[in-house]
């Protein structure tokens, strides 16, 4: 798994990247009550706001980590935003995207570097 400075995790599955938010992110956000995901097929640019997440008190955005195309989104977390709080790195993935070159994830942090960031 790789990590961005915005507390997203990335996992490569063949030629697809799966994206979610980290345990640390959900602790900071608090209980989620709303998730809005991008449409499948959408072309996104790196750092574009593509997901809205809301806790009881406030709204936040999640950014696209890379340029690419959204190929799948996780309806389960739209139905039940609390899943993000209970299983952020497993069942509560946010979206899957196709990117020109999956080795682009190498630029992001590994587990140790991320742990150092959040400490």
């Amino acid at each position, binding site marked *: 798994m790789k990590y961005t400075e915005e507390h997203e995790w990335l996992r490569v599955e063949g030629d697809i990247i799966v994206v979610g938010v980290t345990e640390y992110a959900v602790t900071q956000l*608090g209980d989620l009550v709303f998730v809005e995901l991008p449409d499948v097929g959408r072309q996104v640019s790196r750092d574009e706001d593509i997901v809205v997440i*809301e806790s*009881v*008190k406030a709204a936040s955005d999640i950014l696209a980590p890379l340029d690419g195309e959204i190929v799948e989104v996780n309806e389960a977390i739209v139905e039940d935003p*609390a899943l993000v709080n209970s299983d952020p790195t497993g069942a509560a993935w946010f979206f899957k995207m196709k990117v020109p070159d999956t080795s682009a994830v190498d630029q992001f942090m590994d587990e140790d570097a991320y742990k150092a960031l959040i400490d």
Partner: protein
Amino acid sequence: MDDGTQTLATLPLAQAHVDAGARMVPFAGYSMPVQYPTGVMAEHQHTRAHCGLFDVSHMGQVILRAETAEAAARALETLVPVDVLGLGEGRQRYGFFTNDSGGILDDLMIANRGDHLFLVVNAACKADDIALLRAALPPLGVEVDVIEDRVLLAVQGPEAGAVVAALDPRADDMRFMDVGGLTLAGAEAWASRSGYTGEDGFEISVHVSQARAVFDALCADERVALIGLGARDSLRLEAGLCLYGHDIDTATSPVEARLTWAIQKVRRPGGDRAGGFPGEARIFKDLEDGAGRARVGLRPEARAPMREGVLLFDAEQGGTQVGQVTSGGFGPSVGHPVAMGYVDAAFADTDTALWGEVRGKRLPVRVTALPFTPLRFKR
């Protein structure tokens, strides 16, 4: 959020909150617990199921004393459109300071404790309220005594009665809006059976030297959980209660805010002590003609919350702006987004269909009755 120039006041019980794992945030010039490790949702739900303990010591506590109780009451009546003279000993009522244009300066609780009146005002308005009282009341023979050495705790929920009665059985004799003295964990407490959640409960003022003992005694009761400002806000929103500075402010008249129930008949046109408070002309006009707009409950029909500032329209495309959300979020007890706001009078009927603009998109929202959750006061 520390900009280096902001010095926050600390609550007397600050260390207890930090020890309990509170996340502290700035609010009204104080460092306050916004949530504990359990989180806003769990704290909110615990309050409605059991009993929540809130430290609201940031709020202002003021005592008004005069030669006679009547003199103090009549003096306060020059600032609030409330029947203070008719408020019995051992009773409390809700009121608001008005300004010359009929707007609201702050809302407050007024208690008749026999030889004095006891006021609780909002933290954000504390300085202005005290200045107002100090300017207006001493010339009328009233001494304004600002209490700075007492902690204020709120104990709220269906089990709050039992929790407090376990410490002093006299709590069982108190009904909604009664005030009286209780002895809690050895401390002399000024208590009122009231709150800001829509649930039964008490608001308790104790001397700072005894506050930790009371706090610990309440926390030791397994029915009690500590609750932060995050849940305090979602609880009061579900209960349809106004938050000063958001749902009511200097531009809202009590009539627009649908708070006329707090203006007793004796202070209205035709009453024995009609008027005599700031803004009487505008308020009486609103009572007579109806106000041009009204505070309403709002029920977004999709999943997205509609928060303060969302504009309300009468059509999905184009149309006219007919209102604005003044408080909004998610209601953990009802499981859907909830909001309050103002709409033009023509759109204020329950079930009126409107559209709220959220992130550039118009989403459906319906005018709904308040409160969202049933009020469970001990009457």
